[in-house]
């Protein structure tokens, strides 16, 4: 039960650029929602962390939802590690639950009725097909890796913002995603915790083999956490001179 790559090993293009992108994310995304149009192309290599900077309403969450598979795109194509996830022209759409994409949501969305351990084990069961004890043991390992092993028995309501962030990251990474999406990872935190979590993320993110996409409105977070920053304005990417 490994993260599936069902229909497509044959879709990788012949060019060298496509071969390079085959390890990471290669997406051109067009989504229309009434008046609003999101139209972006982006590429994130394996091991690279890219920040998408934009004000609210710029289309950041639409982009994130499209990549996660929570929203089908209208035009374009999303491919990840050589696998096409969404291509309306080819009638390909891999639903969210079968995409090897991990998401850390802005306010974490840890299931309030489950303890931290069970929150992490949830994805291990659903995505990797682990069972009972094995899932729980591996969940504990992930929590320990992020320094929150002793909080495994707490429910999310009894975790601080920084602790919740770590549990949420453990939960997302435990499913062994090939792309990690972080939605405003620091917005829900107060200033003290912010610095601590920022340092923690800066230590963790470079070690991931998967490409990482951070969506944020804060240029400082983008600067500190990402290798590269792209800016999104009114649904389109804008040039950031000098970044």
């Amino acid at each position, binding site marked *: 039960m490994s993260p599936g790559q069902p229909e497509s090993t044959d879709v990788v293009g012949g060019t060298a650029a496509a071969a390079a992108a085959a390890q990471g994310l290669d997406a051109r995304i067009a989504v229309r929602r009434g008046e609003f149009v999101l139209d972006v192309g982006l590429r994130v290599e394996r091991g690279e962390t890219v920040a998408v900077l934009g004000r609210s309403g710029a289309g950041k969450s639409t982009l994130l939802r499209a990549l996660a598979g929570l929203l089908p795109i209208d035009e374009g194509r999303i491919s990840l590690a050589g696998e096409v996830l969404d291509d309306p022209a080819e009638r390909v759409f891999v639903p969210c639950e079968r995409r090897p994409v991990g998401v850390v*949501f802005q306010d974490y969305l840890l299931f*309030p009725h489950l303890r931290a351990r069970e929150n992490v084990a949830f994805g291990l069961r659903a*995505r990797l097909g682990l069972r009972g004890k094995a899932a729980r043991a591996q969940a504990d390992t992930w929590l320990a890796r992020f320094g929150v092993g002793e909080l495994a028995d707490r429910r999310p309501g009894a975790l601080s913002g920084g602790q919740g962030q770590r549990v949420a990251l453990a939960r997302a990474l435990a499913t062994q995603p090939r792309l990690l999406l972080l939605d405003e990872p620091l917005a829900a935190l107060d200033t003290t915790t912010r610095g601590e979590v920022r340092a923690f993320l800066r230590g963790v993110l470079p070690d991931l083999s998967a490409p990482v996409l951070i969506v944020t409105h804060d240029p400082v977070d983008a600067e500190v956490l990402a290798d590269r920053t792209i800016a999104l304005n009114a649904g389109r990417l804008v040039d950031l001179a000098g970044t």
Partner: protein
Amino acid sequence: MTSPGGTSLPWALPSRRQGPRGAARAVRRETRRRVPWALWVPAAVAVLFLLLPLVGLLIRTPWSGLPRLITEKSVRQALLLSLRTATEATALSLVFGIPLAWLLARTRFPGRTLLRALVTLPLVLPPVVGGVALLLALGRRGVLGERLDDWFGITLPFTSTGVVVAQTFVAMPFLVVSVEGALNSADRRYEDAAATLGADPWTTFRRVTVPLVAPAVAAGAALCWARALGEFGATITFAGNFPGSTQTMPLSVYLALESDPDAAIALSLVLLAVCVAVLVTLRANWLPGARRLGGARRLPRAGATRDIPADGDPR
């Protein structure tokens, strides 16, 4: 019946606290300062009106003869039948009602509003009418009942199963309405989160959606059970009044009132005690959990980022 933003039902559990505790307390103190007499007088009348009959029941209870009256075989029979059928009706309502509530709350299809109105009709329909309708549909000569009888030899009217059918018909809408309201106001992004973790829609429903509305399911089930326990009109119309098989507590109370008023009072007292016991158990077992869930569901904001929250995990 439900407003889009949340539950408008008087029995709906509060799904989240209004704000920090201090603020809530301040507001409460202020309202206590000056309650207009135009409000508290009618409220007091309402309380008297609601409590007086119960007091009357307690005053007139033949306490000395009580042990004999409530240990009679016919009473035990009726009580056990009532408890069994009400529990079965609640189980059926849970099995079929929760998916129906989910369908009404989570999907969009033409005629959904009409369907919701129709399935909640038994809430306002006189139960006797419900009983007549059940006879016409499931009776021995009924639209479906005739087939059931011919093809499978299944007869529903005037059987214990008929009692369960009548009670389910009348009580299930309570559960559906309660759960649907909770589903409408639940944060659907948890379901998105479950999907990103690889959970298919069925797993998400079982392990995220239903647990998140568990307090509403419990409240709905309690109402459903209480309604089924007290069901009279549809039961007597569809299932009849046979001691041992279809004579439930409410029916035997009504009959006893004509022959033996003391027995009727005693039976009523037993029903009252059962209902109070269930309410107390629910409060003790469910509502604290409901409150904790509701509290935890709030977004972690700047002010909430302390290491040991005041209302931390009670463990």
